[in-house]
């Protein structure tokens, strides 16, 4: 399982690659650069990851650094914590973010709080990767979007890459983070393609993916693509929507967000997680606080329905925002008072 010294191979900047390949390359580059980086989780090795992200890594880095584990989510996270405290830089993987519920004590009571409880003596530099979201009729226990839980937990960084370049760069940045990062990969994006740029902004910088002066679409992860589609539709009708990709929720780029909404006076927040007490609630509250005097219209939230995710394909698709529903909500936001 040991491998020869890796070829000094450069990443495919400027080329079109898959989201999952971008993730793989990010891990590969960091593992090559730093022997302390390890990958640990269920089926990350021989199987190559449930969605193929880590294919080939076991062959290159060997069993000591690419560790297939038993089905023990809590121990996987706990092991990563201990390893991070004693010199390794673990990338732990939960096959689905729904399984974070099995490891929540380790994630929220331990990883997130260790630096604080111990008075700053040590941090927990680990990345917790997990697959989120709908799109494959995987049912109520394999389709959730749980970013709000992590965002609500002080001490955790939360990254939600929507593009190939962000998959690559945010993951590399996450591996370098001195604090634990929950890194959420949307299952509907793994096979998506895009050009890998040669750089990307750091965590905590939102990116405007499309300019516009009539309203601001605030989003991240897969819903970015739905928003862009909707914005195209709207543009054909003369409505110009700015599409803001938050990229990370912690740290959050409140300034870019506030500036956009102050300019447009209208905000439509689009997330896939369950609406009530979800990420869109915090975004709505923040925008209201920062832009109160600039708002022409109420801030709208278009999020997942307040239901568990059903398996049946028409129900699953109907339970989260779609380009069509985004465009309709945006139109209504602009039409209300002429």
């Amino acid at each position: 399982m040991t491998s020869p010294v890796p070829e000094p191979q450069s990443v495919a900047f400027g080329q079109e690659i898959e989201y999952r390949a971008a993730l793989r390359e990010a891990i590969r580059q960091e593992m090559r650069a730093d022997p302390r980086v390890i990958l640990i989780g269920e089926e990350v090795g021989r199987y190559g990851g449930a969605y193929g992200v880590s294919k080939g890594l076991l062959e290159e880095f060997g069993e000591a650094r690419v560790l297939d584990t038993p089905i023990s989510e809590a121990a996987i996270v706990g092991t990563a914590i201990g390893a991070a405290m004693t010199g390794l830089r673990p990338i732990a993987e939960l096959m689905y973010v729904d399984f974070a519920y099995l490891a929540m004590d380790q994630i929220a009571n331990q990883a997130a709080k260790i630096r604080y409880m111990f008075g700053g003596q040590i941090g927990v530099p680990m990345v917790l990767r997990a697959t989120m979201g709908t799109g494959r009729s995987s049912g109520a226990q394999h389709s959730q979007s749980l970013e709000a839980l992590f965002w609500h937990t002080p001490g955790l960084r939360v990254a939600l890459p929507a593009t190939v370049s962000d998959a690559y760069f945010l993951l590399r940045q996450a591996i370098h983070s001195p604090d634990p990062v929950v890194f959420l990969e949307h299952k509907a994006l793994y096979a998506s393609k895009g050009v890998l740029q040669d750089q990307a902004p750091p965590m905590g910088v939102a990116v405007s993916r499309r300019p516009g002066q009539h309203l601001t679409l605030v989003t991240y992860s897969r819903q970015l693509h739905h928003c862009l589609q909707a914005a195209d539709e709207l543009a054909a009708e003369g409505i110009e929507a700015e599409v803001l990709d938050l990229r990370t929720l912690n740290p959050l780029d409140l300034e870019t967000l506030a500036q956009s909404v102050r300019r447009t006076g209208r905000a439509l927040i689009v997330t896939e997680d369950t609406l009530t007490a979800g990420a869109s609630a915090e975004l709505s509250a923040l925008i209201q606080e920062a832009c109160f005097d600039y708002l022409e219209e109420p801030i709208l939230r278009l999020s997942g329905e307040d239901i568990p995710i059903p398996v049946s394909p028409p129900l699953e698709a109907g339970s989260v925002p779609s380009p069509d529903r985004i465009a309709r909500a945006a139109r209504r936001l602009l039409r209300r008072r002429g």
Partner: protein
Amino acid sequence: MSETIPVATRLELLRTMIRIRAFEERVGELFLRGETAGSMLHLSVGEEGAAAGIALAMQPGDTFTTHHRGHGIFVARGGDTQRMMAEIAGKITGYCRGKGGSMHIADMSLGHLGANAIVGGGIPAVVGAGLASKTLGQGSVSVAFFGDGAMQQGICFESMNLAALWKLPVVFAAINNQYGMGTRIDRASATLDFAGRARGFGLEAVEVDATQPERVWIAASALIERARAGQGAGFIVANGYRFYGHARKDKSPYRDPAEEAEGRKRDPILNQKNLLIGEGLLTETEYEAFWQAANLEMDAAESFAKQSEWPGLSTMFEDVYDPSSPPPVPVEERLNRVLGGAL
């Protein structure tokens, strides 16, 4: 412990295993043709001996939970294959109105407390069912079915300890097919003596060959009746082999082809057939008739599933809460309220 097994049961074991396999092969075909809902379908082909052997040892009124590879168990417990197939296809006529799919089939009227897509997630519920049985004097036993993979989940051991501590009418049934997804058990578990591990939590524990369904039935019957009699909770591990990949499309590249060939030879259906034919209790013709009946049953199930309707969009909001309270407000309606200026 009864070592005798009625002839009717011996034949029923075979008939049940055939029905399971026919069911699994059929839904596997539907999956490959894109006629099931969802990206995941886990077939129990090769493991029918464990399902039939344990399930037929249970009594009416007994309850159970299953795992993501649970179709076979429920077929053996009397599940309606039409409603099962409809559920797997995501149709409104399915057991769960299309909301649960393959990994969440349940049927309260048959004691099926639910399949589970969380490895180990359904295990503690049987402790509760056992507690209810004991507290209310229901006389029932509750059985948790799960895979070898769940033997590394903490909840499994917390549940075992509780059931043993309280001497509940509960049996834990591990179906060991040697793999959890792509990971062979010896790469997941520090010891392979699962029965010994269960004894460490105070359970009466037994290990059986899942490809010999009669042995499974005998061992399971003893454990179940012991538990029912208030003598304590039990554990059975039934060792077999997963003939197909983890999910229907997985070709198991991580398995040694020689091992696979060997594993597929250990076929519980053929074993039982040969046993019965050898003893003169079955003829080839009768065996074929079992298959024909099973295939006809699955034809009917398939057309039922196909002809059934998709659930209507509004059903999405049903079943979150008891019908006595209002359903969640749809996002669309919230937008109407905000934009309409009304509450």
